[in-house]
């Protein structure tokens, strides 16, 4: 029987078959597939949807250009900025992250982006989630491809978990996809629907047909739901999280981790950062939610000794224009910061130069660090995966970061 891999090798039509750029077929080849072993380490990705204003998150509080560009929106020392070093300070709402920073559990990467940045939410989010360049269309996600490559033999969707109702592109690979659930109980309940439970007990016929694929996915879903439901009962958190959607989702994540779930990648989102109007209040609230949530999450994981084996990474689809707009807000921009949290960061602190406000590209920050370099570092140095196969080409990794 010819499988897809053989077919791709032999067919003269191969190059025209798929919209997926050729490089990603590297993952189809045997040999690359078995690299992975994360040594019990896990990654938690926090998506800040809407385009978080990085300059008012990690504030260049000694830079006149910042105050000049944002006469009413700039944050000043007297309003309670939380100083990180001589150049940068955290937004006043982020006290719990300041504590983690002081404790050596937080790192900041400035001016992360990609060439020819796209200012559309949707397109730029696709670029970040797929790990493509801006002139490339890739229909799989970078974490999905990690699932593809890392662990061909552990055929369980809960290797990647998104705490939400639907699954993001980031978590969809070619062969394997993560699993989205709001909470294990509710998810389990759905699979316990009498009819669905019966059908999901049926075996795939083993002929690699589409029907087979559906039965296989259903069976995996049901057994994952079972496993997650049973396992998640083990640990109930006693830490106080913010009473918000995001807080609850982080709590669910912590409970799963502390219960000993074997998930390698978690994905949690916080949305609402599209602050074109009256930014101060809205962003402050969101950053407070972010910092309080992550503070509680870190505390929860520290209590059970899991923080050292956890790496948290935040990102947003773009930063915002340096100049404020006429509505006390900011418009879509380009490069942005990434925050890293973890009990065992090898290099905490501010990890590269503060954003260069003197050298802008049409009013926007120029990126200094490609986001795929960060992905490559996390994939290879933290998760022990083949970054090159997953990202399609080699991006310089950040030495000794994680």
């Amino acid at each position, binding site marked *: 029987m010819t499988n897809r891999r053989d*077919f791709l090798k032999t067919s003269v*039509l191969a190059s025209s078959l798929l919209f997926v750029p050729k490089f990603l077929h590297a993952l189809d080849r045997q040999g690359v597939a078995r690299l992975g072993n994360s040594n019990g380490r896990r990654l938690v990705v926090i998506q800040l949807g809407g385009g978080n204003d990085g300059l008012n998150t990690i504030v260049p509080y000694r830079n006149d250009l910042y105050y000049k560009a944002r006469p009413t929106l700039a944050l000043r020392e007297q309003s309670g900025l939380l100083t990180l070093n001589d150049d940068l300070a955290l937004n006043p709402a982020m006290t719990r992250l300041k504590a983690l920073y002081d404790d050596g559990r937080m790192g900041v990467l400035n001016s992360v982006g990609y060439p020819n940045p796209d200012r559309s*939410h949707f397109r730029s989010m696709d670029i970040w989630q797929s790990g493509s360049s801006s002139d490339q269309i890739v229909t799989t996600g970078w974490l999905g491809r990690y699932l593809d490559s890392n662990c061909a033999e552990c055929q369980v969707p809960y290797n990647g978990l998104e705490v939400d*109702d*639907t699954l*993001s592109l980031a978590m969809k690979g070619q062969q394997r*996809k993560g*699993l989205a659930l709001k909470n294990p109980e509710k998810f389990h309940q759905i699979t316990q629907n009498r009819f669905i439970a019966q059908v999901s007990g049926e075996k795939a016929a083993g002929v690699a047909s589409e029907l087979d694929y559906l039965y296989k*996915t259903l069976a995996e879903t049901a057994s994952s739901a079972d496993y997650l439901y049973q396992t998640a009962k083990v640990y109930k958190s006693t830490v106080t999280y913010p009473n918000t959607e995001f807080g609850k989702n982080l709590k669910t994540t912590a409970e799963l981790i502390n219960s000993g779930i074997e998930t390698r990648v978690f994905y949690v989102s916080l949305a609402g950062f599209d602050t074109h109007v009256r930014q101060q209040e809205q962003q402050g609230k969101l950053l407070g939610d972010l910092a309080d949530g992550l503070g509680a999450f870190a505390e929860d994981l520290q209590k059970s000794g899991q923080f050292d084996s956890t790496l948290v990474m935040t990102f947003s689809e773009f930063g915002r224009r340096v100049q404020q707009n006429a509505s006390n807000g900011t418009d879509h921009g380009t490069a942005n910061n990434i925050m890293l949290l973890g009990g065992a960061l090898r290099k905490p602190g501010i990890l590269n130069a503060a954003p260069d406000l003197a050298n802008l590209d049409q009013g926007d920050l120029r990126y200094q660090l490609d986001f795929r370099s960060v992905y490559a570092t996390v994939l290879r140095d933290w998760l022990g995966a083949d970054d090159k196969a997953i990202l399609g080409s080699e991006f310089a990794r950040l030495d000794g970061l994680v």
Partner: protein
Amino acid sequence: MLQFLNNQQNRKQRPNENFAREVMELFTMGRGNYTEQDVKEAARAFTGWTSDESYQFVFREKQHDAGPKTFLGRTGNFGGEDILNIILAQLQTAEFITTKLYRFFVNDTPNSAHIRPLAQAFYKSQYDISALLEELFSADWFYDAVNVGNRIKSPIELLAGIKRTLGVQMEDPKPLIGYEKALGQTLFEPPNVAGWPGGRNWIDSSSLLLRLQLPQVLFKNAQFNVALKEDENDILPSVTKADRTFRQQIKTHVELQPIADFLAKIPEEQQAAKLGEFLLQAPIRPENLALVQQTAAKVPPEIRLKTMVTSLLSLPEYQLM
């Protein structure tokens, strides 16, 4: 398409390659059949192609680069139409388009023994699409078992199929848009210029469970409680969580009489199997037939038919066409 692919920014002094690249990569030849240099040269030829406020095509001569270009081995002072003609002169273009149609209508796994002759005829006919489709639909292999019921329905195909087959009337059709979004396909809002990847890409654990629950939601007023993501490509980030959450129960009317008439002359114990043949493209598994029969037997006679239909539509087999 010019708008979508930034051709308004494609000018003589500062070419933008987006349109030129995607024309070749996604719509005519596919990757690997042209060089980066070809993309650059084609972009120069498309300079000045743009549109006015009412999206009518406009050629702005002042923005056009009228100099000589070399594209796919030919040299001349090419304009955009010349480039398109050269692309169409490649047999590869006929193969690429035929392959796309084959994957959509016949089988996601292309069979070059089927595609080759079709593509050659298509090329000779100067790209007569209706002739190509007629040949494709009337080929013997089109009706082979391996090419029937092997394609995963898109969310729209799934929803429209249920609605049309059963004559579903909804008091308020708006929730349909919510189902579309939750299942990953909003009409006229493709994720990017390549469109929806389709096939197995529609299916993950969560979307499959939603799909299987859909008949119960539609016919039994079961709850459908899903928060749509803020980064769905047409939900702006400013839309609040409450507005993104989709939990209304919907009232539907299903027209079961035609099905009842259809089954009237069939002995009761054969009805489920007959209905399965009618509703499902793939043959029903014996254990599923038994399950459908048991489920129907447990309910009062007046809702038996509805239950039977709902059960059949909740099977993985119904996800295929």
